[in-house]
């Protein structure tokens, strides 16, 4: 096998050789449990790059080159993937879907002085205590609380069954915050966890039914989601299933189609809110078979994709403001980015989190296989 | 019938059989004697292809056996009763016999009766698991199993191994009986005395080479053989 230190930087477009190039690292899972979500997020970034392939930095036109690595949804493979980006000398990193891998790679970026913009990693720990990690999404305490409120307001639920994935910071965190909020509202929680690689959700659904819970809260990856939905339908689960931004995916719609289930998710974006954007991206997805496959085979636009799209422009804003491709300058500039994207207005607070306080709740229409807007929720902090 | 020419066998670096030649005429009992590790078993095993012969040739009725896979060699009318019996312990006696005729497609009944006639003991025990048979019975079974393939030539590797002397005598009676029924026999034995008495022709092997040959009677009288294998030098 040939190749040396520069073989990885050979991972370039043909166009890379001419003119000025600025590299944006995309640190996302393409395989493993979060592969589906990672790909959808990446899709948004790629679409944005397709729409806006260049950026003017300090008066020079730069070609933006995406450097995409697969972190394999794994906290132990992630750092090496991150190190690849570092050695490729990217100016800023986008990602990752999944809070755990983001936290795992955080130090690698930190040491290299490269700023990272989380797209949908909602766990507080991602940005906490460091100055190089930012994110454009809302946080789990917020999202968990939204669900707790929704469960008790809309369904009058007093008892909830919470199913989270063991060792998944995203899932565990949401479960934790939901439980806190729900118990504060006087509810009772039955909590269970499942292990990575688990495919048998029979007994979980059985326990959920047995427990007499009035809602099921199941923040998890789409992989597990499909299996949970399948089992819930097979066992005739009657209570509503609530879940979070990860479930805003056509994988869920496909799995739920034709089944007698009540599924609600929170998300960052409601399809149809920006028809122009929707049309553009659908066009693009339909014209590119790989993109379509990565989107799960159809052109439903996931909130994740839209967030990816916004993250790209946030990065461009920072580059422009920095006036240089130097990661340190970009990092500095990010604090003051003010950008209005498809999903809303993005500014960062002192921890590097986006100032967001709105989530959209959607329900899966199991007949048509589409999302239906239910409510827009925000909580007073 | 069987002709071995300049046969060499080695295991990794160890040469077990060096340039040996001998032949086994039809209808005779031929014996190969020699000390432990002399290479007798290796010779037999290379004839049926269980170990690869390095060089030389092995001709059965003029047909070259070297390089032919074991399972095909045994269809050509030659078979081996392996050292240490090696019956299939968790199969019944009857199954062991049937598997002896594995590659045959014709009816087995006749041969089964033939073997049962030779070894009435096996008929009594046909439903017993072979692993629970006594050593002597296992040896009978091993011979019977080999006969089931209707071999023209049967090679036996130390059939008296691990058997009480009385049983050994019984085994030799059977060898003579089979031979009388027209089967050619190549016998490898530690018990040189009895082997040479039973044999028409004998070869003596020492560290991989054939050092002596002659009729059974001649070898029995040979002083060197007496000294080395019959334990009679001192008397």
């Amino acid at each position, binding site marked *: 096998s040939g190749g040396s230190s520069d073989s990885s930087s050979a991972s370039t477009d043909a166009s890379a050789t001419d003119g000025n190039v600025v590299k944006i690292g995309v640190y996302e899972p393409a395989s493993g449990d979060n*592969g589906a979500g990672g*790909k959808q997020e990446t899709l948004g970034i790629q679409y944005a790059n397709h729409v806006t392939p260049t950026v003017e930095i300090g008066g020079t036109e730069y070609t933006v080159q995406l450097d995409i690595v697969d972190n394999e949804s794994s906290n132990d493979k992630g750092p090496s993937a991150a190190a690849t980006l570092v050695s490729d000398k990217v100016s800023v990193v986008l990602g990752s879907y999944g809070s755990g891998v983001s936290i795992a790679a955080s130090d690698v970026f930190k040491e290299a002085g490269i700023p990272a913009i989380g797209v949908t990693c909602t766990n507080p720990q991602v940005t906490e205590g460091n100055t190089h990690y930012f994110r454009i999404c809302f946080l789990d305490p917020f999202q968990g609380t939204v669900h707790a409120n929704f469960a008790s307001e809309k369904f009058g639920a007093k008892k909830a069954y919470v199913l989270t994935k063991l060792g998944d910071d995203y899932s565990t965190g949401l479960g934790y915050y939901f439980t806190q909020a729900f118990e504060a509202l006087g509810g009772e929680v039955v909590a269970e966890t499942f292990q990575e690689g688990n495919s048998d959700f029979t*007994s979980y659904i059985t326990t959920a039914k047995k427990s007499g819970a009035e809602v099921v809260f199941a923040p998890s990856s789409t992989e597990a989601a499909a299996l949970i939905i*399948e089992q819930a339908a*097979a066992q*005739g689960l009657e209570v509503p299933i609530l879940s979070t931004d990860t479930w805003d995916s056509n994988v869920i719609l496909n799995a739920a189609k034709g089944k007698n289930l009540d599924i609600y998710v929170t998300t960052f974006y409601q399809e149809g809110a920006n028809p122009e954007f929707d049309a553009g991206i659908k066009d693009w997805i339909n014209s590119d078979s790989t993109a379509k496959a990565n989107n799960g085979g159809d052109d439903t636009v996931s909130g994740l994709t839209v967030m990816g799209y916004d993250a790209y422009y946030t990065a461009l804003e920072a580059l422009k403001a920095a006036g240089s491709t130097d990661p340190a300058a970009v990092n500095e500039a990010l604090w003051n980015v003010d950008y209005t994207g498809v999903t809303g207005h993005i500014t960062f607070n002192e921890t590097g989190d986006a100032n967001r306080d709105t989530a959209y709740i959607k329900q899966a229409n199991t007949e048509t296989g589409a999302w239906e807007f239910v409510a827009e929720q925000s909580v007073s902090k | 019938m069987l002709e071995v020419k300049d046969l060499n066998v080695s295991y990794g670096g160890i040469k077990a059989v060096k340039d040996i030649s001998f032949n086994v005429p039809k209808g005779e009992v031929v014996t190969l004697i020699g000390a432990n590790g002399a290479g007798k078993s290796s010779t037999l095993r290379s004839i049926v292809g269980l170990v690869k012969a390095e060089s030389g040739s092995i001709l059965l009725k003029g047909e070259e056996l070297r390089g032919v896979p074991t399972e095909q060699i*045994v269809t050509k009318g030659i078979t081996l009763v392996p050292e240490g019996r090696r019956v299939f312990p968790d*199969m019944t006696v009857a199954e062991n016999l049937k598997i002896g005729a594995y*590659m045959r497609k014709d009816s087995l009944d006749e041969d089964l009766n033939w073997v049962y006639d030779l070894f009435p003991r096996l008929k009594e025990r046909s439903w017993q698991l072979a692993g629970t048979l006594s050593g002597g019975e296992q040896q009978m079974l091993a011979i019977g199993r080999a006969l089931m*393939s209707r071999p023209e030539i049967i090679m036996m590797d130390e059939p008296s191994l691990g058997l009480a002397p009385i049983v050994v005598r019984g085994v030799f009676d059977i060898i003579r009986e089979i031979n009388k029924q027209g089967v050619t026999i190549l016998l490898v034995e530690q018990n040189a005395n009895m082997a040479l008495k039973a044999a028409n022709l004998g070869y003596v092997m020492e560290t991989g080479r054939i050092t002596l040959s002659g009729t059974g009677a001649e070898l029995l009288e040979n002083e060197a053989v007496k000294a080395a294998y019959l334990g009679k030098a001192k008397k």
Partner: protein
Amino acid sequence: MEWINQNLPYLMAGISVGGQYALIAIGYTMVYGILRLINFAHGDIFMVAGLIMVYAMTVMPIYVAIPLMIILTVLLGFLVERVAYKPLRSAPRMSIMISAIGVSYLLQNLALYVTGGLSQQYPPIPWLSDTITVFGATTKRVTVITPVLTIILVLALVALIKYTKIGMAMRAASRDFETSQLMGIKINSVISMTFIIGSFLAAIGSMLFFTNYTGVTPTAGAMPGLKAFVAAVFGGIGSIPGAVIGAFIIGICENIIKGLGWTTFSDAFTFALLIVVLIAKPTGLFGEKVIDKV
């Protein structure tokens, strides 16, 4: 009655999962019996069977897809043996096991490459996927069918091994290669046959499994594979009845543990049970003692 209604699903799931494990475990145990090889790739063959079905169903009707899936899976099992294990027959045991791990890697990564890492939705199989109600518990029909089918298949397999000529050859070969060859048994065909039967059962197992748990991912075979392997060891590796009983015990225990709310420990419990059994019976429930004759 209420209690039964509530807990029956755990038991049913346990029996059903046990049946699926059993079908995979037989593949492990048969290969081990004959080659003394832990065929780490077996679980992945099971996964590939799932993928083949996913892709086959997109282009052809089900009555073509199922036989095709079975044939391709069997072919895969056969090829794996020929390419990765047969050349190593005289090599040290460790290398052939590493080869098995290599094949497992390869199949998983190929699946990853082909699917792009996305979970594939297993197509519903008419009748099997239907939802039914048993004693008031709702479930898929496949849950009930699995143990029945498993037992039928296992009985058929046992009959095959006990009463047919090829079965006799397999039993002989698992004991003693050389003597079997002396009997005119073609060892390579017997070994191929073992892989073919193992893969066939894995193919059936995958159909039952994925009809219940519908996501096929590149690592979908790993966990059931490991569990089935544990089941095989549990029952005494090399013994078919042992593997089946081990599989049912593990399937049921695992679901009972989950039912009790100890979900974190459901896998750990399986292993703990295994270790306890091994300490009491170092070669599993039905395994034979290996005696070092001095």
